């Protein structure tokens, strides 16, 4: 059942790649959209059959693959991975839908996007460390090509930077996984038996360190983040949507699954420093975003800041904060996808993303009123205005983390305030005021360009109003992540107590 989520896009990619050359780009897009839509529907079917009250892996598939390496093809889904899977399907649909109709080399492009989708789904489903690594690496080359071929002016630089950073991340991950399996004396890379194993603390810290850096590159956390703004600025809009919406989630998902999940003890030791790291990441991202004049770069830095919250919440590791983690992953996926889409439309119509050149785009007659409204909705969600999913996730994270790390949480809350600062700056300059003379005669915005953004905005508000529709899938799993480790629960009051005594 779960295999279909991986193999449908892979077979689809093969079909699309070998379509006859005389088929137009438009039809190629329709075919790939049909394939990915089927995969998305399938993920919804899985979600419906999923039993939210159970915290264990469901729909388990397990086949021996390569015994000599201890590699098994085992898939499973739990409350942590299910929402991310659905998000992956949704955003890939949107990315394909919002791709330019007349794109060059359409067959290659769409098959790469489909491969990317398959790789990400596989990583979320994998219940074997090596299998996860395999899928984690599979998305590397497609994404490299997607940036390097269909990117902007400095695409080569950005693509190779992305490639090298991610390869280093992969290598560290492989080293850590080899270490985990070898030191724990296991003969296979299967996830479940490993989880309960307890190593000496020093080894745990070493391995966890490697895993943290590996996923820290992917998430990305300051100072390992420098590839992200470049990659975002050079990538085309649909690829930015996928990159921010789904691929960064591999990092945070991995952090929860393989960092917190495999090393509860070491995690507890490192948690205070992780919280500080999160604060640095949040504040650096937010302050740098304020200084940007390129809209896309601003959104990219805001991404860094928002991903920092997830580190804070996972460092705190209370049931509530972990639930907040999942909310934040989904909400960041939706919101940043919306923002990138809207920025993409503005860029396409106005020909620039420079905040200093654009002005008054909300003008109802000659501007982009609906796109402007959607942008404002996205900005509000990102800044955590109640009634949207951004508020729910940030509230959960801060509420859940405060008892463990009050000071760090307060500092991160400053980051939320800064989000309003830079996004209001952006909205104020670009959308309000008189329409700038430099951007008159904007081409007409098609409904096909508005629909994806509108759908995202709708989901953002929907989950903001009824957050329990999202939480019910996850709560059992995130709670279970804590429960087998009563040690942390004991530590939390102690930590908050000692923090409380500080002046």
């Amino acid at each position, binding site marked *: 059942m779960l295999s279909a989520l991986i193999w449908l896009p892979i077979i689809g990619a093969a079909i699309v790649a070998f379509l006859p050359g005389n088929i137009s780009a438009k039809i190629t897009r329709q075919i790939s959209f049909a394939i990915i839509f089927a995969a998305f529907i399938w993920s919804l079917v899985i979600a419906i059959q999923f039993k939210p009250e159970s915290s264990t892996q469901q729909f388990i598939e397990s086949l021996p*693959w*390569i*015994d*000599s*390496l201890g590699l098994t093809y085992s898939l499973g889904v739990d409350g942590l991975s299910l929402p991310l899977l659905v998000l992956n399907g949704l955003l890939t649909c949107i990315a394909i839908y919002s791709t330019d109709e007349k794109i060059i080399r359409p067959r290659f492009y769409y098959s790469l996007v489909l491969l990317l989708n398959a790789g990400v789904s596989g990583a979320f489903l994998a219940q074997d460390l*090596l299998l996860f*690594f*395999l899928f984690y*690496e*599979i998305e*590397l*080359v497609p994404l*490299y*090509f997607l940036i*390097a*071929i269909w990117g902007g002016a400095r695409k*080569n630089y950005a*693509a*190779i930077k992305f*490639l*090298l950073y991610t*390869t*280093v991340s992969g*290598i560290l991950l*492989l*080293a850590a996984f*080899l*270490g985990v399996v*070898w030191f724990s004396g296991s003969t296979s890379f299967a996830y479940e038996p490993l989880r309960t194993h307890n190593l000496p603390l020093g080894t745990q810290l070493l391995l966890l360190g490697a895993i943290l850096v590996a996923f820290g590159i992917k998430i990305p956390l300051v100072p390992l983040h420098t590839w992200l703004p470049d990659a975002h600025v050079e990538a085309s809009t649909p690829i930015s949507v996928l990159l921010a919406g789904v691929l960064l989630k591999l990092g945070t998902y991995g952090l929860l699954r393989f960092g917190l999940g495999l090393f509860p003890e070491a995690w507890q030791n490192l948690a205070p420093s992780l919280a500080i790291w999160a604060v640095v990441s949040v504040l650096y991202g937010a302050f740098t975003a304020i200084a940007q004049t390129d809209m896309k770069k601003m959104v990219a830095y805001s991404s860094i800041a928002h991903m920092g919250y997830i580190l804070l919440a996972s460092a705190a590791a209370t049931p509530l904060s972990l639930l907040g983690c999942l909310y934040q992953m989904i909400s960041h996926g939706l919101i940043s996808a919306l923002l990138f889409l809207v920025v993409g439309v503005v860029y396409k119509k106005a020909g620039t993303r420079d905040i200093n050149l654009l002005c008054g785009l909300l003008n109802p007659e000659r501007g982009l009123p609906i796109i402007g409204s959607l942008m404002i909705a996205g900005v509000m969600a990102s800044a955590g205005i109640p009634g949207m999913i951004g508020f729910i996730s940030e509230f959960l994270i801060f509420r859940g983390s405060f008892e463990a790390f009050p000071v760090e949480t307060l500092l991160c809350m400053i980051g939320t305030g800064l989000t309003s600062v830079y996004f209001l700056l952006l909205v104020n300059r670009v959308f309000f005021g008189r329409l700038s003379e430099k951007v008159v005669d904007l081409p007409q915005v098609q409904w096909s360009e508005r629909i994806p953004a509108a759908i995202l905005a709708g989901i953002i508000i929907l989950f903001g109003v009824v957050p329990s529709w999202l939480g019910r899938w996850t709560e059992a799993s995130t709670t279970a992540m804590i429960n087998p480790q009563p040690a942390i629960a004991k530590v939390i009051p102690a930590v908050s107590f000692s923090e409380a005594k500080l002046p």
Partner: protein
Amino acid sequence: MSFAELAAQLNAGTILPESIVIATLIVVIMVDLIVGRTSTRWTPYLAVAGLLASVVALFSQWDINNPVSFLGGFNGDALSVVFRGIIALSAAVTILMSISYIEQSGTSLGEFVGILLTATIGGMFLSGANELVMIFISLETLSISSYLLTGYTKRDPRSNEAALKYLLIGASSTAIFLYGVSLLYGLSGGETKLSAIAAGLAAGSGQSLALVIALVFAIAGIAFKISAVPFHQWTPDVYEGSPTPVVAFLSVGSKAAGFALAIRLMVTVFPLVSEQWHFIFTALAILSMVLGNVVALTQTSMKRLLAYSSIAQAGFVMLGLIASTEAGYSSMVFYMLVYLFMNLCGFICVILFSLRTGTDQISEYSGLYQKDPLLTLGLSISLLSLGGIPPLAGFFGKLYLFWAGWQAGLYLLVLLGLITSVVSIYYYIRVVKMMVVKEPQEMSDAVKNYPPISWNFSGMRALQVGLVVTLIATSLAGILSNPLFNLANGSVAKTEMLQSAVISSQVVEATTQVSVIK
């Protein structure tokens, strides 16, 4: 000694695969002599058929009960079967890719096939050679034919230069190897059989300076064959100058023979100085991985790039030898199997490109996808596989090597291998980027004047078959690698010398542990 007894001692059936190749060789030469030039339309295919028949014969030898033959001169155990298969297959693919290449260079194809088959026989015998004289003769058969092959396009001055360089350095390295071997002969009290030498050494003075010198000299000869740094100096020049099919054979077949010799010699003869040879091979592996990968970054010629890449790959393979565990040896075998496909696939693409455009410069590949999608796909897949990108075959090969190395406790070496493979991804992807990413307006001159694709010339069909077969093998050997894993593991499990070596090293480890505890 009665005849039956002699026949039993000779046990000549073990060299059936080699006999098939020899028969093919004789037929090819005779036909070339009698029929003349016109026969080249079918003699290469005859040679390929002979090599494949020999591979089939090897299969039938897989479960052989008594592998030792010719009074202990040749050991056809499972390990040698696999290595002989790799060499024969690499020769078969090399012939497929050389037909149109050699015809275009205006030299005789029949002789080329003859020399290549001779080299193959040398390599195959070397993989199973169990006795010093046998080792030396087969090594020389392989080497001398290789010198002839590198200089085969005699109108090309670079080919001549390559041959001379290879001959001079090769001859001196053989001399050093021979000197080392002669020391062994003396130290063991006049034995030539490897197992007898080991026994003689153990009974004699044990670990002595002379033994270490013999070890170093023997390793120097082997390192030359597998082009490990610092014995690699010939590689880039020879690779650049020689006919490309020859390079393909040198980088796979000849290297496989070198590794087979390395395993047999080190494991059987030098258990006494096992610490020393591990140390030397560790140094060689480190140097090869670092230098091969780093120098490859700056290359502008495709053949030189592949030369340095093959040096680096040899460094990775040595990891398995250093690990000296069952998993270590089988990871070497497995890696050589997948390396066979991916490297030959890459070379076929390079030959195809140079046949169509007449150049090997990396910058000339720019924008190739527009004109030749199949060639672009083949070269991209093979290079990405060499770089170890999942889910291609090379990824699993590297993973197995690293996994085996990690299990054997070679943490630093494995980490170094991981780091240098990041470097390698950079230069492999640089070529892929040239072909795939560049826009039509950035197309190179060679690609602009690319001839229309046609497979109808003589020999092109063979090239196409070779390309498609190796391409499919490279793409699928990773995902469906269980048969290959079984083959690699089985070859080690069935090989007596490795089993005893692994067990004895475990015993040594156990005793040291016990003594530590005490």
